[in-house]
């Protein structure tokens, strides 16, 4: 070796730590060995074929290396992943490391889900922990392998059974290996019936994709809000959020047979997915009305919930201003699967039937050659718009800068006084709209928003979903980010709630709550981790925040621990006496700031929060149930013994009339989540 290399070698030797987990690892390996032996008895399969291992490996290795390199560029687009999310990511994905291990064991046996439910259940339990949702829709290579592996499942059942009994601390590693064989099987059982020809992600997943695609999903997330001590941090500030993407992603995961990645869960989006019936504002009041309710926490007898419900006004839709819409559609090759471009086209067709004749629509695509596929056309000429939509086909790589800039240029053309311009960006996640620097992209969109054109983002399909960027773009564009996994969801977002999605009634809505330390010892905001604002941002009108659309309702829930309660988590300080404040019996004070669309200065609404305020209707308690559900999906640190059974009971009791069926669907999903979690 050359001197330099010797130096490197010595340095490496010095740096290598001594292995400290040897005993534990060896024990684990022996246990698995034993389990495998036990399951093998009786099914002697000496003639186990080995495929050309080296070839697959070498092809795979070089393929992975290549993928890894190309991933790096895309990586630049990820906007908001926090460092701790990285920690969680490492933890979760370490457990998934095994998934690729499973060597193909060709077997003529049909890929049938094993009948014996018990080991499957245990195995499935591990799916939650291993969270292979990013893995499941990944590649054709895995698909075909799994078909064969699922056959192996029958033999390996014993292995799984033994493995699942392994100590919880180490179970994940082992079980994760078998787990990937399970999702496709579960998918075939759990896949919902296709609706109107457009299928959910489940069928798209079953499709054999010719080109294996790396899974590059990235979610916007942050650490769960911790419990705050009122004397230390009496003020809580955040921006409202009406996006619903996280709920759809959760649904799509569950329908595909695996628990949603905790990183993809944003509790506020799940709560805000449902329409609520909060008291509507009067005609000459502010455009929205806050209603505060204080009631007992379902999951903790020692705490209470402060529920803030904000209801936007629903102006008569006949009087609404004309809409100028630009559909900016990603037609790159990756959009070809049934749950992407075809679903997108159907969704837009649905929406078209809701628009008025004076509205104008234009279509711009970006892929290969970006281009304006349809000039601004009045909706009275539906045929032309439909024809243009139907002509869309996926192909080519994602193009250019031209995409977004062209869309804004077209929106400029269409603009007229009193009309609302909005770009609807529909994509499966790879935001190759030409501006590759995410900050530059955000700035560009913010500038355009200030000049009057809004941007909403619709996400389709899994595997590529850059949820973090979607959120960031919609936030900057004063629009909504939604994830469309089924045609029903398209109907909800683009038809039922079209008013809210298209017509903002208040911009930059911020909430600030000050809690009274004489009454409240601790508090915790549920959700809104990615919407936190600094205390000074509240009064700063240049700080961007969320929008409320016509008819929208927004919910925020705090869990509060009154002074003197048994449930206080933080001990009192020893060396600093507790502050002796004299509150006037109020629990806290709520402040809201908003801007009327078009205005630059905000207006302020305030209301005190008092004990026992408001009436906890079924509606409100259902929203608390969803808050509990979101927490169950992300670990449920503060839920104590409250689990899925209690959740489902509460949800059932409070679902009320449920005209659209969203709540019943939610309860179905809760049941699925419960089964998948192995409770």
């Amino acid at each position, binding site marked *: 070796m050359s001197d330099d290399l010797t130096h490197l070698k010595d340095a490496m030797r010095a740096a290598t*730590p001594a292995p400290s987990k040897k005993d534990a690892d060896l024990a684990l390996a022996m246990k*698995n060995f034993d389990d495998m032996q036990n399951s093998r008895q009786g099914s002697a399969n000496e003639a186990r074929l080995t495929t050309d291992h*080296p070839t697959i490996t070498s092809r795979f*290795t070089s393929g992975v*290396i290549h993928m*890894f390199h190309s991933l790096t560029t895309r990586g630049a687009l990820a906007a908001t992943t926090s460092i701790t999310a*990285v920690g969680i990511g490492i933890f979760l994905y370490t457990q998934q490391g095994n998934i690729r291990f499973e060597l193909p064991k060709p077997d003529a046996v049909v890929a049938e889900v094993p009948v014996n439910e018990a080991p499957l259940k245990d195995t499935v339990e591990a799916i939650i922990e291993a969270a292979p949702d990013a893995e499941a829709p990944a590649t054709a290579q895995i698909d075909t392998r799994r078909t064969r592996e699922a056959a192996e499942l029958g033999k390996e059942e014993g292995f799984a059974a033994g493995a699942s009994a392994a100590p919880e601390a180490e179970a994940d590693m082992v079980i994760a290996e078998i787990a990937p064989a399970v999702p496709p099987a579960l998918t075939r059982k759990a896949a919902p019936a296709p609706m109107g020809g457009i299928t959910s992600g489940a069928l798209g997943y079953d499709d054999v994709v010719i080109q294996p695609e790396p899974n590059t999903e990235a979610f916007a997330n942050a650490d769960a809000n911790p419990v705050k001590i009122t004397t230390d941090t009496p003020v809580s500030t955040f921006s409202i959020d009406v996006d619903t993407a996280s709920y759809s992603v959760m649904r799509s995961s569950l329908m595909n047979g695996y628990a949603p990645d905790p990183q993809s869960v944003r509790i506020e989006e799940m709560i805000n997915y449902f329409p609520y019936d909060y008291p509507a504002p009067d005609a000459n009041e502010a455009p929205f009305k806050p209603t505060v309710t204080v009631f007992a926490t379902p999951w903790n007898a020692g705490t209470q919930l402060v529920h803030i419900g904000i209801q936007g006004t629903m102006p008569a839709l006949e009087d609404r201003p004309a809409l100028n819409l630009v559909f900016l559609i990603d037609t790159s090759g990756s959009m070809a699967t049934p749950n992407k471009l075809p679903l997108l086209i159907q969704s837009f067709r649905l929406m078209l039937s809701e628009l008025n004749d004076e509205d104008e629509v234009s279509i711009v695509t970006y892929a290969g050659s970006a281009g304006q596929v349809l000039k601004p056309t009045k909706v009275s000429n539906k045929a032309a718009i439909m024809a243009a939509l139907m002509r869309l086909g996926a192909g080519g790589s994602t193009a250019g800068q031209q995409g977004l800039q062209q869309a804004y240029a077209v929106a400029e053309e269409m603009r007229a006084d009193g009309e609302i311009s909005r770009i609807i960006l529909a994509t499966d996640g790879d935001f190759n709209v030409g501006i590759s620097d995410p900050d530059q992209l955000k700035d560009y969109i913010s500038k355009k928003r200030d000049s009057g054109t809004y941007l909403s983002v619709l996400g389709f399909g899994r595997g590529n979903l850059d949820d973090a960027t979607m959120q960031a773009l919609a936030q900057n564009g004063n629009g909504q980010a939604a994830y469309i996994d089924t045609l029903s969801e398209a109907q909800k977002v683009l038809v039922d709630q079209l008013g809210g999605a298209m017509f903002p009634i208040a911009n930059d809505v911020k909430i600030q709550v000050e809690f009274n330390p004489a009454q409240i010892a601790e508090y915790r905001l549920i959700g809104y981790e990615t919407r936190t604002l600094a205390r000074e941002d509240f009064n700063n009108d240049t700080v961007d925040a969320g929008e409320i659309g016509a008819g929208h309702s927004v919910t925020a829930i705090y869990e509060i621990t009154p002074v003197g309660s048994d449930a206080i988590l933080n001990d009192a300080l020893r060396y600093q006496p507790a502050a002796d404040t004299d509150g006037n019996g109020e629990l806290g004070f709520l402040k809201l700031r908003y801007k009327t669309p078009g205005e630059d200065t905000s207006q302020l609404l305030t209301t005190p929060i008092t004990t026992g305020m408001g009436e906890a209707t079924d509606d409100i308690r259902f929203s608390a149930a969803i808050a509990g559900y979101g927490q169950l999906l992300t670990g449920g640190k503060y839920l104590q013994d409250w689990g899925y059974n209690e959740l489902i009971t509460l949800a059932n009791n409070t679902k009320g009339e449920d005209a659209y069926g969203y709540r019943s669907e939610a309860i179905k999903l809760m049941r699925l989540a419960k089964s998948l979690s192995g409770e």
Partner: protein
Amino acid sequence: MRMETTDETLAQAAANGDREAFSLLLARNYDRLFGLCFRLTGARADAEDLTQDICAALPAKLGSYKHQARFSTWLYRVAVNAAHDRRRRFATHARAADGWGDWEVNRVATNKETQDGVDWLTQAMSSLSQELRDTLALTLEDEMTHREAGEVLGVSEGTISWRMAEVKKHLRVMHQEEQKA
């Protein structure tokens, strides 16, 4: 008796269900495996996780061990695949540097000299491409010939030799920069 048995024989026996053989095989190779995992990932925690993954999966994988390959080649191939997998997942989620990017210097001895050596190591490793790092992980400990390393990584012997030359060139340049500084 067993003391003299080669890894290859042990592996074959283990694949056929011999528990003691498997136990011995793993015990013999664990430290080396861990070392490799460390060289691949650059961080102790990652190396531990990776090693554990591999140990857990080994019983199942043994079924595919073909007697003609050297056991260590086969084992290292398993390890490299596992590391690549982990990296891909990690990249998806975090888009952050891998182990060689977020090294914690204070994990190692506080001896100033060793510490300097470590700093330089991190610097050197981080400035190389992933392929070169993987190659180094295999070749830095003299157990692997270029041909064997090629087998593990799925490239030709010539490619490995070329990569090693690249590394030496790179190190030489680094050395020269340091001299200037």
